[in-house]
C-alpha cells in the first residue's frame, strides 16, 4: 500500500477489516488517505489496542484521519460510515489482510464487502492471505469463489514467497464490485 500509495490510497476512504494491530490502516493514514476506519471484532481489548496504536503513532498528522471501531462482519455499517465526511455510505478501498483462514466466516466477509465497498468501477477490496495451513489451501481459495458468485470480479495481482520464517505465499486480489 505504501509503495503505490498515490494510486491506491491517496485521497481515498479506506476500511480495514480484522485489523489486529492496524498496521496497514496506519500506513494508509500516513500515506494520504482521506479517511481511514480500522476495525476488528468488537472486543474491548482489541479496539482499545487499535486506539492505542493510533494515539501513540507520532507520525500521524493532527488530527489523525483514522478511527477505530468494532465491527462484526456482516452487521450494519453505520457506525463506520459516520466517519466519512462526505456523507458517503461506502468506502473506496477495503483491506482484508490475513482473514481467509476463517473459513466459516467467508460468507459474512463477502457480505461485508458488499455492504461497505462503493458500487463504483474504481472501488477495490484488497485481499491478502497466506496459506498457513497448506492442506486447507482450497478452503482459503473458496472465498474467491464466493466473491465471484456475489458479483465481484476477482483478479490476482501478486504472489510472493518469503525466504524467512516460513514459506510465505502472499496473494493480492482485486475484488471489483459489479456496478
Amino acid at each position, binding site marked *: *500500500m*505504501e*509503495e*503505490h*500509495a498515490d*494510486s*491506491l490510497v491517496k485521497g481515498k476512504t479506506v476500511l480495514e477489516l*480484522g485489523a*489486529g*494491530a*492496524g*498496521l*496497514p490502516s*496506519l*500506513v494508509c493514514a*500516513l500515506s494520504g488517505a482521506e479517511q481511514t476506519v480500522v476495525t*476488528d*471484532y*468488537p*472486543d*474491548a*481489548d*482489541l*479496539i482499545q*489496542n487499535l486506539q492505542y*496504536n493510533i494515539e*501513540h*503513532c507520532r*507520525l500521524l498528522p493532527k488530527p489523525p484521519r483514522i478511527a477505530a*471501531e*468494532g*465491527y*462484526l462482519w*456482516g*452487521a*450494519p455499517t453505520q*457506525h463506520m460510515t459516520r466517519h466519512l465526511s462526505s456523507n458517503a455510505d461506502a468506502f473506496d478501498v477495503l*483491506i482484508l*489482510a*490475513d482473514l481467509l*483462514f*476463517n473459513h*466459516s*466466516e467467508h460468507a*459474512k466477509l463477502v457480505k461485508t464487502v458488499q455492504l461497505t465497498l462503493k458500487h463504483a468501477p474504481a472501488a477495490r477490496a*484488497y485481499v*491478502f492471505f*497466506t496459506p*498457513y495451513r497448506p492442506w486447507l489451501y482450497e478452503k482459503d481459495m473458496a472465498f474467491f469463489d464466493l466473491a465471484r458468485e456475489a458479483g465481484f470480479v476477482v483478479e490476482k*495481482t*501478486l504472489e*510472493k514467497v*518469503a525466504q*524467512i*520464517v*516460513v514459506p*510465505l505465499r*502472499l496473494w*493480492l486480489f*482485486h475484488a471489483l464490485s459489479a456496478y
Partner: protein
Amino acid sequence: MYVVHIFIVHTTYYYGMYVVHAVRADQLSTAMSGRTARRATTYHSNVLLFIRYRRPTHKGNSHILGQTCHGARARDREWLSLENAFLFWKPAIKFQSTLISTTSPEPRPPLALAPCSPAMASHVGEEGLDLFQEPADFYEPEKQATFATHLLQSGRALQVRLVGHNPLWVGHVSRWRGRQENSTHGS
C-alpha cells in the same frame, strides 16, 4: 458421543451491535453472532442457554472462531469449529425460545439448570451445578502485549502494540509478516 453442557451466555449492546459474551466459548459466538443474538436482546433477555459438548480447556475471553482466542488448543478448536458450530445452532434457538417464553421482560438470570438430559447428568455430578466455578488453574495466564516495529519506506519506524493470541495463526510472527508485506506492497 457428545457430552452435553449448558452454558449461560450474556449479550450486550456494544459498538452499535449486539455482542454475545460467550463465557469461555469462543465457538459458540460463531453460531450465535448476528440474528440470533439480536433477536434475544430484542426480547430483553440478556441470558441465553447453550449446549456445549466438551469442556473448554482454554480461556475463551475472545469471542469468535479465529479472531482472538486466548490460549485455545488447536485440537479443541478442531473439535468445536465448523460443523460443530452448526450443531450448536439448532439447540441454541430451541433453548432460547424456551427461556424467553418463561421469563419476564426484565433480565433475570436463571438460578438453576432445571432440565437435565441423561447425557449431561454424569457431567453435572462431576462438576456440580455452578458452571461458573472453575478450578483455580482452569485459565491460562493472560499473555502480555508485545510490540513490533515496521520500517516505512521513508526510513521512519512505525511501532504497533500487539495483543491477543490466535491458535490459527500458526505463530503470529508469520501473520505479522503478512501484514508487513501488505503495508509495504500494493498491486
